[in-house]
């Protein structure tokens, strides 16, 4: 870990002005990922601008009937907030599927969006990695890639985005509010993270001089038919091999509005509008679910050790949609799969 300056931002404007003046500064909130990466010498910011005291900790209903979640709301507060557990239980469930209680207490909502990949090569500065050091190469493609991506990969990078929360947010059509030197703007969650392409060093479309201020959820929360099903190598405290956020609006056995987002399979939470369209207006059953899964995965590509994920993702999608249909969401405390 390098030596760094530390300063505290008093408000959003101050945070923006501080980050504008130092190109290698970084914001820090909970620090649950950034501090680790600094210890591993993956990140070496010249300055940490502590934003944890900014007034971005509210969860409020919007006039449109949705929810606005301050960027600094801790993951644990968000997961257990009554408006979230009642109206957006999918989000609550995804949050509780991630990390540990201790980490969720520290981790902020905005920071969760900015988690970096867990690719083994990204974390080890003794090995090449295009994400860490553009142009150095991607050993994961022919290496230990059990946790790597099967969708949306590029020659340069097969990393995955590790967040659980973001998978639920993608399914729920959340929007990210950001502030920057040119004012405020809104980015759809599904457009927030990028595919690696030939610029894997860029995880998101957030400009380094911008700050996340809030996440906004539209009114539709799918509180009746939803699930977050996370499959991993142990029953808790592991990143997803494959996770599925499924949410359905049902009408007499027919799917009216389907949402399907995958985690652990791509550089971003993975949604496929075609697959969702194939479910809408159709009877909800294993056949239609399998068809949707096939659409999601028809371009999936394995890299050896992670090839099993394609079939696993298919099974997990079908199971998750079944759980959502039946109104038997996956419990995140009992590890028996519903």
């Amino acid at each position, binding site marked *: 870990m390098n030596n760094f300056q530390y300063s505290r931002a008093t408000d959003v404007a101050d945070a923006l002005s501080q980050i504008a003046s130092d190109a290698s500064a970084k914001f820090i909130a909970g620090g649950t990922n950034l501090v680790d990466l600094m210890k591993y010498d993956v990140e070496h910011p010249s300055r940490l601008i502590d934003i944890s005291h900014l007034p971005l900790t509210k969860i409020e209903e919007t006039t449109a009937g949705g929810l606005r979640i301050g960027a600094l709301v801790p993951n644990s507060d968000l997961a257990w907030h009554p408006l979230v557990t009642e109206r957006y239980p999918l989000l609550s469930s995804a949050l509780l599927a991630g990390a540990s209680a201790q980490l969720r207490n520290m981790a902020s909502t905005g920071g969760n969006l900015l988690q970096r990949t867990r690719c*083994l090569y990204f974390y080890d500065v003794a090995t090449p990695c295009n994400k860490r050091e553009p142009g150095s190469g991607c050993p994961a493609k022919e*290496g230990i890639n059990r946790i790597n991506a099967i969708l949306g990969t590029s020659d340069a990078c097969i990393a995955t985005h590790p967040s659980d929360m973001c998978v639920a947010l993608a399914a729920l059509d959340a929007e990210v509010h950001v502030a920057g030197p040119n004012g405020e703007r809104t980015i759809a969650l599904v457009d927030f993270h990028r595919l690696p392409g030939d610029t894997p060093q860029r995880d998101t479309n957030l400009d380094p001089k911008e700050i996340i201020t809030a996440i906004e959820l539209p009114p539709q929360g799918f509180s009746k038919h939803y699930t977050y099903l996370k*499959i991993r190598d*142990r*029953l808790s405290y592991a990143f997803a091999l494959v996770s599925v956020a499924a949410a359905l609006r049902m009408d007499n056995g027919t799917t009216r509005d389907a949402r399907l987002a995958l985690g652990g399979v791509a550089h971003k939470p993975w949604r496929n509008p075609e697959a969702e369209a194939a479910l809408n207006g159709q009877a909800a059953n294993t056949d239609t679910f399998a068809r949707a899964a096939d659409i999601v995965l028809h371009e999936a590509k394995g890299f050896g050790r992670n090839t099993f994920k394609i079939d696993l993702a298919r099974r997990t999608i079908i199971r998750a949609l079944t759980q959502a249909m039946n109104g038997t969401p996956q419990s995140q405390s009992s590890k028996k799969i519903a």
Partner: protein
Amino acid sequence: MTTYIGTATSRVDGRDKVTGAARYAGEYGAPDLAHGSVVNSTIAKGRIRRIDAGEAMKVDGVITVLTHENRPPMADNDEAYKDDVAPGDGSPYRPLYDGSIKFNGQPVALVLAEDLETATYAASLVKVEYEEQPHITDFEKQLGKAKALPAPAKPRGDAAKAFAVSDIRHDAEYYVPVEHHNPMELFASTAVWRDGKLTVYDKTQGVQNVQRYLCGVFQARPDEIRVMSPFMGGGFGSGLRPQYQVVLAVLGARALKRSVRLVLTRQQMYMVGYRPAMVQRIQLGAKTDGALNAITHNATTITSQYEDFHRNETTWSGLLYKSETASYAHKLVRLDLPAACDMRAPSAATGVYALEAAMDELAVALQMDPLELRLKCYSDSDQHTGLPFSSKSLRECYSQAAEAFGWSRRNPEPRSMREGNDLIGWGMATGIWEALQVPITVRITLTANGHAEVACATSDIGTGTYTIMAQAAADMLGVPIDNVTVKLGDSTLPPSPVEGGSWIAASVSNGIVTTSNAIRDELLRLAETMPNSPLMGIKTADVTLSDGSVTVKKTPRSTVPIADIMRHAGVDRIAQEKATKFGKDGKHAHNTHSAIFAEVKVDEQLGVIRVTRLVSAVAAGRILNLKTARSQVMGGMIWGIGMALHEETLIDHRFGRIMNANIAEYHVPVNADVHSVEVIFVDEQDDIVNPMGIKGLGEIGIVGVPAAIANAVYHATGKRVRDLPITLDKLTRDA
């Protein structure tokens, strides 16, 4: 008197541990403390061409950067580096000795600075240029080049011939990957420098081993280096041998002539010893009634290029079950990795996994209940030697564990037991370990006010040694446990070997008996001259120490307070130091046994495995402390879940480098993976093994558990996965 022995006494050091009063090696300070940070190699084989520490030295607060080129002198011969536990063959690794690179992650420089942050940062600035040579870390590719070791045990009959004509044959290979110990406490050493002498606080399972080793490496006199390890946050074998951080801390202290602390990082914890990866081929031949007539167990394990570490995986197969013929072979593959080392139940966790998974497969082939097969092959003698056991209550283990588990309700058909989406599997296995004991010396000082100090240079690696020593001493001396002070983990105390092999509880407890008897004898001797003493002419064996008095066993009213004896003799304390040796018992085999039953539930579509129940019945002689014993066995069982389902050190062979060197990606069981874990201690009186009848519990908890779980997974799914860990993808793969 047994007021404390055999009870569930809480840890005497528990309060210190939970309040932070117990200090660990990396927590000791000194006014002149400098902090170290290690630079590790990023190649697996070659030579250091150049080390550029220029940038590091420019950092404010950096004192020096030590490399093989500028370090203080160290011994130049292998003998000096051979610690008590070093393997016989090969050259022990010498940290920072020369420019050769023997494995990826090897220490190449030590940065010393005024504070840890500065040292760590400066270490990241040290540039090392290498002359790289081709390396080999891929075990599978080197299998053909394995070197045969001398036969691990004498074969019985012609196993190959017997196998060929057996009614039922099973022949398969079992794989265990490289695994790491992952103790919670990082390897750490604080070398405190005082006027040219060093007190080294080290994370180790053997302070005197480290002390002798350091004296050899640094050609120091014994009184120049003292090694202390009063507390240890888990060893599991990784702390049996001195690790490189203790050498580097002492190097630093000698270079600077001041105190140095060095704590490894979690990543660096994966660049030391490990449980070796292995392929084991087991052939079992049986008659149709299940009687074994041939056992062949061949193991191939890995080690480094410089040192041959191996344990005898195959010995358990020959010992455990009745079979007319048996043969064993062990081969070793040398790779460009650090030397392998002991890890919990070395050879048995792995060897018995293969044997017991194979026995399950044989039971399937025989269409026989797996427990019935074990009983059919049950042996009342060590099959290697023909010697009877000093005690063997394995039958009771089987019956009590089976009863607690409900084994009789098992439907033998795989995939036959279901619950919703879950397939339920029930599996079982046998566990075995040696009941070992080692020479040990214990000093006891009993004061007139009824306080006792018990001292021995053994270690408490977290298992409860402080507590059992206090229990044994309190009972033997007849004082309340609160009046007993235990001193251990200090190289200046009476001699003890390293704590390992499950041998310390039996050894030190019997050592306390020996020395307590000497205390008793001395009291009687002093009492001889007391006027009108009821102890006059009484033999030592006829008295006990209880309630602060010497009492005649047959006439309890004949009693004299210890304080009175000491007052009469004009002393305020009696101190005795006695060595205890355990004679070679040429007439019996000494072993502990266990029976493990496991229930798994496997989601049929997704392959997610939950170990919902584990029951282990253990026969290990007298149990000193039901609470610490249970904890220790439970820990082993939970580790068995990890070995069966989670643990695997992943090496990228292109770099020869361990890629999951952290506990986020090297998975061990978390609470969610652990459900019902039940430990049963089977009554086992053993008057032969040692006077106290203790056999030790350190290893037996894990042995057999991976096989019981693997067998349960087969019963649930019909899928036999022989390569650990059993991850969900292996349940759906072809073949």
